[in-house]
C-alpha cells in the first residue's frame, strides 16, 4: 500500500474543509482547527489499478501566512492551494503560502483549487489573472463545495503528479 501525506492550504474561510467534507473519511471534529490548527482526513484514490492512501492535513487558514506552523508541512509529498473565486485577496494569500511552502519544504507537486465554481458570475478573480498563473506553470482546477465539481478530479490529479516524481 502506498501512502502519501498531502496538505491543504489557503486563506481563512475559503471553504477548504467544506470542499472536501463529502469526499473524505474523517473521524476528527472540525474543532481541531481552532485548537491545534490542523485536522486530518483520509482519501483513497486509484492510480493505475492500485490504491493510494492520501493522508490529508487540512491546515487552518490564516490571513497572515506566518501563523501557519511550518512543522505541519514537513514530509508533505504534495499540496492543494485553495482560493475563493469571489475574493481576490485569497489569491494573494495563496501566492504567499506557496512561497512559504517552497521555502520550507522545497518544490513538491501542487494544484490550485479555485472554489465557488457555482458562483462564477460573482467572481472577483478574472480570467486574465488565471491565465497569468497558468503561464507560471500553476495547475488550476475550478471546484465547488456545493456541487462537488472538480474535487474528485483534483485528488486524482495530485496523486498522479506525486507518483510521477517518485
Amino acid at each position, binding site marked *: 500500500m502506498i501512502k*502519501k*501525506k498531502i496538505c491543504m492550504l489557503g486563506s481563512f474561510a475559503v471553504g477548504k474543509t*467544506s470542499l472536501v467534507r463529502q469526499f473524505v473519511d474523517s473521524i476528527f471534529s*472540525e474543532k481541531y482547527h481552532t485548537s491545534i490548527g490542523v485536522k486530518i482526513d483520509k482519501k483513497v484514490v486509484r492510480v493505475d489499478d492500485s490504491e493510494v492512501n492520501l493522508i490529508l492535513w487540512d491546515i487552518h487558514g490564516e490571513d497572515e501566512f506566518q501563523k501557519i506552523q511550518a*512543522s505541519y508541512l514537513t514530509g508533505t509529498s504534495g499540496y492543494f492551494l485553495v482560493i475563493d473565486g469571489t475574493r481576490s485577496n485569497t489569491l494573494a494569500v495563496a501566492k504567499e503560502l506557496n512561497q512559504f511552502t517552497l521555502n520550507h519544504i522545497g518544490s513538491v507537486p501542487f494544484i490550485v483549487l479555485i472554489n465557488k465554481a457555482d458562483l462564477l458570475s460573482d467572481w472577483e478573480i478574472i480570467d*486574465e489573472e488565471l491565465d497569468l498563473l497558468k503561464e507560471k506553470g500553476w495547475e488550476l482546477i475550478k471546484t465547488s463545495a456545493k456541487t462537488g465539481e472538480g474535487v474528485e478530479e483534483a485528488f486524482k490529479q495530485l496523486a498522479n503528479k506525486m507518483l510521477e516524481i517518485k
Partner: protein
Amino acid sequence: MTNQKNNEWDELRTLLVGQEKVDVDRLVEFLENPSYMEERIAEILPQVINLINKNGQTSLEQFAKALQPSVEKAILASTNDDPRTLSEALHSILPNSINLSREKSQELSEQLAESLTPFVEKAVKNSTQMNIKPLSEGLYPVIGPAIRKAVATAFKKINQTLNQNLNQTISISAFKWRFQAFTSGKPFLDIVARNTLDYQVTQLFLIHRETGLLLQHIEAPNIASRDADLVSAMLKAIQDFVTDSFSIKKNEELSTIEVGDHTIWIEQGPQIILAGVVFGNAPLDLREKFIKTLEQIHLDFFKELADFNGDTEPFESNPQYLKNCLLKQEKQGTQKISKAKWIIVAIILAIAGYFGGDRYREFDRWSSYIDQLETVPGIILIDEGRKNGRFFVKGLRTRDSLNPITMLDDHQFNQQDVNSAWTFFQFLSPEMILSRAKKTLSPPDTISLTLKDATLIFKGIASKDWLDQAQKTIKSIWEISEIDFSEVQIKTVKAPISLRMLTQLKKEIEDSVFYFPVSIFALSKVQQRKAKMVAENISLFAKYCTEHDIKFSIIIKGVADSQGKKELNERYGRQRAEALYNLLVENGVNKDDLSIRSFIEAFQDRTSSQSNRRANLEITYINQ
C-alpha cells in the same frame, strides 16, 4: 720513425699478453657501462642478501644500517616527487600491517593506538561539526543498549537496597510474596510488582517520523480502534504542536500522553516513532521493550527507511516486531473476605446506623441537592463531598444558569455552612454558540444562520461589505472554526470586471508598506519577497490600464523622520525609496511608470519613529 716504433710495441704486446688484453678490454667495457653492472648486480643481489641472512643477526644489522640512509632518502624523494605512487603502494599493505602489529605485540598495538588517537578524535569532531546525522544514526542501535546496561547496573544496586527495606516490612501480603520469591528464586521486588500491576497494551502504531504516515498498526483482540492512519497522523500533528508551542528543543519531544486509565507511550527513533496505547499501570521495563523494538526495526529496515517513498508493504508484512510488544498482565483474582472481616463490617454498620440517623438525613438532603444540580442547564459539577465536617461543592456555571448557592435554601442548608466554589464559563452547546453568533453579527433579514459542527453556514442574500465585515467579526467567537458562504447570493452593483480588478489591485499595491531598520537601506528577505509580489501586481495593473487606455504614474515615497539634519533625512528617505525602486525594476516593473520622492514626517516618539522609516507606493491616474 715514431710510428714504426709504436707498431713494433703493439706487436710485441700482442705476442706477450694477447689474451689478457682482450679480457682487460672486456672488463673496462663492463665497468664503464652501467647497464651491464645493473644486470649483474641484479643477478647476484638476492644471493648476497641470502648470504648475509645466513651469516647471522650481526651481518643483517650491519647491512640494514648501511642501507638505512639511502632507503630513507629514496622514500623521501618518492613522497615529494609523486606521493600518489607511494600511497597506492601503501594502501594495499596498510590494513595488513595494522592487523599484524596488533597480532604480533601488545606494545606495538598500543603505540599505534596512541599515535592514531589525535587523528580519530579530530575526525569524529569534524564529522559531528559538519553533519551530526550520519554518526548519530550509526550509533543509535549501539548507544541505546549501552546506556541501558549502565542504567540497569545502577538500578540493580538500588533494587537490592529496596529489597532489604521491603524485606523488613511486615504484612500478610509481604510474607506471602516473600515466600513466592523464595520458592521461585526471583527478586522480591519483581514479585511485588507482578502482584500489584495490571495492564494491557491495546494498540501499537509504527509511524514514519518525517511524514507521520502509518507504517504498521496492530491492536489487541476485541479492541474497537478508529482509523489508524488518521490517528497516526494526528499523533504526529499533536507532537509537532506541542514542540512548536512550547519552544521545546528538537530532541525533546512529547513522550507520554495520559488520558484517564490510558497512557500513550511515544518512543522516538531517528526515522520512526513507536506509539503504544497502554491501559492501566504498566511496568517501566515495558517501555524498555518498546525502545529495543524500535532499535531493532531501525537496524533491520535500514534500507527501507532510507529509501521510504510511502510504500508501507515491507513493514506491514513483518508484524512480529510489534506483536512482541502487545503484552498484558492481569491482576490476581480478588480474595475472599474472611468471616471475621464480615463481622467487623456488620458491627461498624450497626454502630453507624444507631448514631448516624441525623447524619444520614443530612446526607440525604445533600444528595438531593447534588441530584438537582446535575439536572440544571448551564451547571457542571466537578467535585462535591464532605471535608473537615463541612459539605463542599465545586463546579462551573454559565452566567445565565440558576444560582447554585441560593438553591441550597431549597434543601434546608445554610449558605454559609457549605463551601461553594463556582467558576463562570461559556457553554459550548450549538444553540448557545449560534445565539452568540447572531448577537455578534446582527445579520440582515435576508440572511439565515445555521451551525454544523464548528462551521457557521450563511444562507440568503447579503452585500459584499456585510459579508466581509461578518468574516472579520466572527473571529471573536473562537468556537467557530470555519464559515461557509457557499449558499449566499452577493448583492452588488457591479462595475466592469477588469475595472473592479483595477481598484482592487490599486488598493493592494498602495496598502503594501516596506519598513527599514535604523541606518539600513536594504530590504530584508521577507520584504524582498513582498516586493516581488507587489511588482507582479503592478505589472498586472499596468496591463489592465493599457487595455482601458488609462494613464497612470506611481510615486515611490521614501519616508524619514524629522530628527536630525534636514538634508540627511531627505537623503535617507530617498535611499529607502531607491531600494524599493531597484527591487521593483528587477522584478519586471517598467521604469517609466515609477518616480521617487523623499518625505520627512514629524518625529513624535521612538515607537512612531519606527513606522517613519518606510517606503510605500502611491498611484495617480493621469487622464481619468
